[in-house]
């Protein structure tokens, strides 16, 4: 029997004000006024955020250039590279809920600067939630001697965004975490992520994050 969909609700993951400012476009030159705005918007959003994840584990099979992920077959070279040495994937969907979308809409007319900063808060929060979840998955995998790869989402590289339909079919996201997909493959609530995390005893423990990215003159590249 295939594993059922599992669900977890998180407490507030650690917050990075720098990341919020970065997502807002304030850049590294953010002044005190920007920092104050970011802080105020975070406080505003805090109450309305929920941190929900649902996921399911699938075995991975390889047939030539095709990856059989258990819920769909894909022929993405980028994902194949990401999943080197993996024999399973955790497919997950995460959302911080509709409250932040409502807040953003509320401020769109009265204060677009706040609306923009709230967008940034939402972006930082959903990434922080994904980080928290992926850290859990990695440590649970480590317990059984497996390593976890950096998460990889539909729409990254040559992995088609259309995979979202399959993701929603097998994870039943509307039911478990209140996350829906529209005909244009956009998610509501908007501050949400779906992704694949490769697991395997031989999973490459190679570069992750900025170090794995080919864009070497990016403004935000973190130095090692």
């Amino acid at each position, binding site marked *: 029997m295939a594993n059922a969909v599992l669900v977890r609700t998180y407490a507030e993951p650690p917050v990075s004000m720098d990341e919020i400012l970065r997502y807002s476009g304030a850049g590294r030159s953010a002044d005190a006024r920007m920092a104050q705005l970011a802080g105020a918007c975070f406080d505003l959003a805090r109450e309305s955020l*929920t941190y929900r994840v649902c996921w399911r584990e699938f075995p991975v099979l390889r047939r030539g250039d095709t990856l059989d992920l258990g819920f769909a077959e894909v022929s993405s070279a980028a994902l194949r590279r990401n999943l080197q040495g993996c024999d399973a994937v955790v497919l997950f969907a995460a959302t911080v809920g509709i409250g932040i979308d409502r807040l953003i809409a509320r401020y769109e007319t009265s204060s677009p600067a706040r609306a923009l900063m709230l967008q940034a808060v939402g972006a930082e929060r959903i990434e922080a939630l994904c980080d928290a979840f992926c850290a859990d998955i990695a440590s649970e995998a480590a317990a059984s001697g497996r390593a976890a790869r950096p998460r990889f989402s539909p729409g990254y590289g040559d992995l088609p965004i259309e995979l979202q339909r399959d993701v929603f079919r097998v994870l039943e996201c509307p039911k478990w975490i209140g996350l829906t997909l529209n005909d*244009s493959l956009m998610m509501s609530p908007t501050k949400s992520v779906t992704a694949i995390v490769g697991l395997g005893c031989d999973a490459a423990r190679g570069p992750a994050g900025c170090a794995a990215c080919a864009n070497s003159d990016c403004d935000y590249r973190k130095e090692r």
Partner: protein
Amino acid sequence: MKITEYLKDHILYLDGGMGTLLQAAGLAPGEFPERWNLSHADTIVEIQKAYFDAGSNVVAANTFGANRLKFQPEELEAVVSAAVENARKALRLSSGEQPKWVALDLGPTGRLLKPYGDFDFEDAVSVFADTVKLGVRCGVDLILIETMNDSYETKAALLAAKENSDLPVFVSNAYGADGKLMTGASPAAMVAMLEGMGADAIGVNCSLGPKALAGVVGEYLKYASVPVLLKPNAGLPAVVDGRTVYDVDAESFSWDVAGMIAGGVRIAGGCCGTTPEYIRLLVERSASLTPAPVVPKDVTMASSYTHAVVFGEGPVLIGERINPTGKKRLKQALRDRDMDYILSEGLAQQEKGAHILDVNAGLPEIDEAAMLSDMVCALQVIIDLPLQIDTTDPAAMERALRRYNGKAMVNSVNGKAESMRTIFPLVKKYGGLVVALTLDEDGIPETAEGRVAIAERILDTAAEYGISKKDIVFDTLAMTVSAASQAAEITLAALREIRERLGCHTSLGVSNVSFGLPGRDVINGVFFAMALQNGLSAAIMNPHSVEMMKTFHAFRALRGMDENFTGYLAFCEGLPQQEDASATPAAGKPAGAIPTGASGLQDAIIHGLKDRAGEITGELLATRDPLDIVREDVIPALDVVGKGFEEKTVYLPQLLMSAEAAKSAFERVKAHLSAGSGGAAAKGCFVIATVQGDIHDIGKNIVKLLLENYGFSVVDLGKDVAPEAVVDAVVRRKAPVAGLSALMTTTVPAMERTIRLLREKAPWCRVVVGGAVLTQDYADRIGADRYARDAMDTVRYAEEIMGGGE
């Protein structure tokens, strides 16, 4: 026997999990379980028979996801018909001796409704209606709407069930660990809405185990006047040694749920992870319990998509500002469809402490029904207060009530036979807390007795429609005291009688009392206090009135409704500011150390100081020509910031803060101009939209703000806009430019379709495109005239086409 009859004296048992058992029988991940009605009929019948054998009175046909979004019409018909047949067969084959019924099961569509999704409310009603009609034709005994985690979709499903069948309807929602639906509704809000619409039983299923749902169930039992239903999961799933297990076993499940039956739950079963064994044990443990009587709760509520406002817990403030009567600026906004202005009026009232907002679009020269419904929808995007729908046009009332997400207040009915005949059926169908005016065909009685007599007649007639007195709030009509010195006394006497003897809640449009007198606020505040002391439950009032708010907070403090005086203390702390806010906006007060004058305004805009920019503009308007202020101060300041942005010395949030400051200066100028004679001539019309299928609009909104700053008249069509709607607007306004935004590759085709249609129907119109996914190359390929990399770029293009600085 009818199931509703049986329910009167018995506990009704539902079935347990289906999905989990089908997975165990080999259902693949992502495979539609409903197809198994045809391909694995025996398995379905076997499971359902096991539930009947275990003691279930009701088994839900395997139609949870059977809707036309997932199945083509022929297959849908086959699936539903096979599902009902399977359940009937299980019923026939079962050895269980209890009365047995088959339910049509309706689960969520998996799509989020507008405004936060792209699925229209009426489309949702129609999708559910198709399945309901099939279920009725196949002869189900009742309809079970379950696992709904959005209040609006729940309303759509219940409306579809009610409009297409006479069957009993049970409605069950899925709550998170925070005790709310995924889209934020509280149990009280759901009880208010669902009971109002006539659900026969309401309750809770899925998500969590029985213990974790106890709080939510308690809320249902507190507010519901209909039987309460409970169908929990066997706790939460976990994977142990590669197998999925739920953490509440049948033993503890049955004890927990039996305990909740003893506490008042009348309909019980199980959801994910439960099996026939869970139900068998549950029946065994609870069959001997005496069913708790279902007692009507005398709770008067209005609700939004998040919460309910309960009458009687303290004075309820109903903000009156969204009503064009006597408000020049709002009339203009209604004529111009200026939703931003209407929303800002709503937000301001919420910030001042209103609990409910009255919404009125009664202006002879506009299509009231369309406008009222649009206003209700727009307000519900950003304001979570319940609304009071205020119209004399029954068609406008119905349209707005239908679209409303929650249980609205209905303003109003009165003692005239015609009024009751048109309004009560609407209240019965859509739910609502109706304001009843104590007047009739003979006008407003001059005595308290006369008004009370009308109230009694209204109650009797409402009862004939099945509307209980808790859903009626009487307005005994505050009359102008300067015209008749006893007017206030009569109103208050009627109020007291209705509250005390008839036991109904009351509401008054307080400020009428002071008409024609100077210092109206003083009279209003004292009259409000007198009315509260005489049993007033709610006031339709201006939340910006300091006197009214003083009375409100003082009354609560004095009556012991304000624990630790928290509300009163907070109010007093803000009091000087409150006094300021009540002054007319154009007055502009001296700003102490703040630099004033022209350079001060430029400074304020460049540094993004919104309030200061507004204040200084107010002062400047006393001595200078408004258009000069715009030309000589606002625009140059914006240019400094705009150039900074282009040179990457100013970043997007700073740019927006400056834009907001400029906007606040413009608002003052605009108010000044509309108070005088002329209006500012806008540079030209720019139609802007996020394309069809795309629900992200922050980028578009930023562009809009900057365009407005630079003096363009912007027609904002919103997000998820059909190509035809863009073309319509462009043609109607003869707009020289249209701006289109798209976030993802999946919506670029919609952008291309829009451009193609524009070329055909509005060949004069230039098209500028932008958005995360767009590039110059993309823009060229879809035939756009221009790719704008950011908001300033769009402004520059608009200036190119329509002329720039003056």
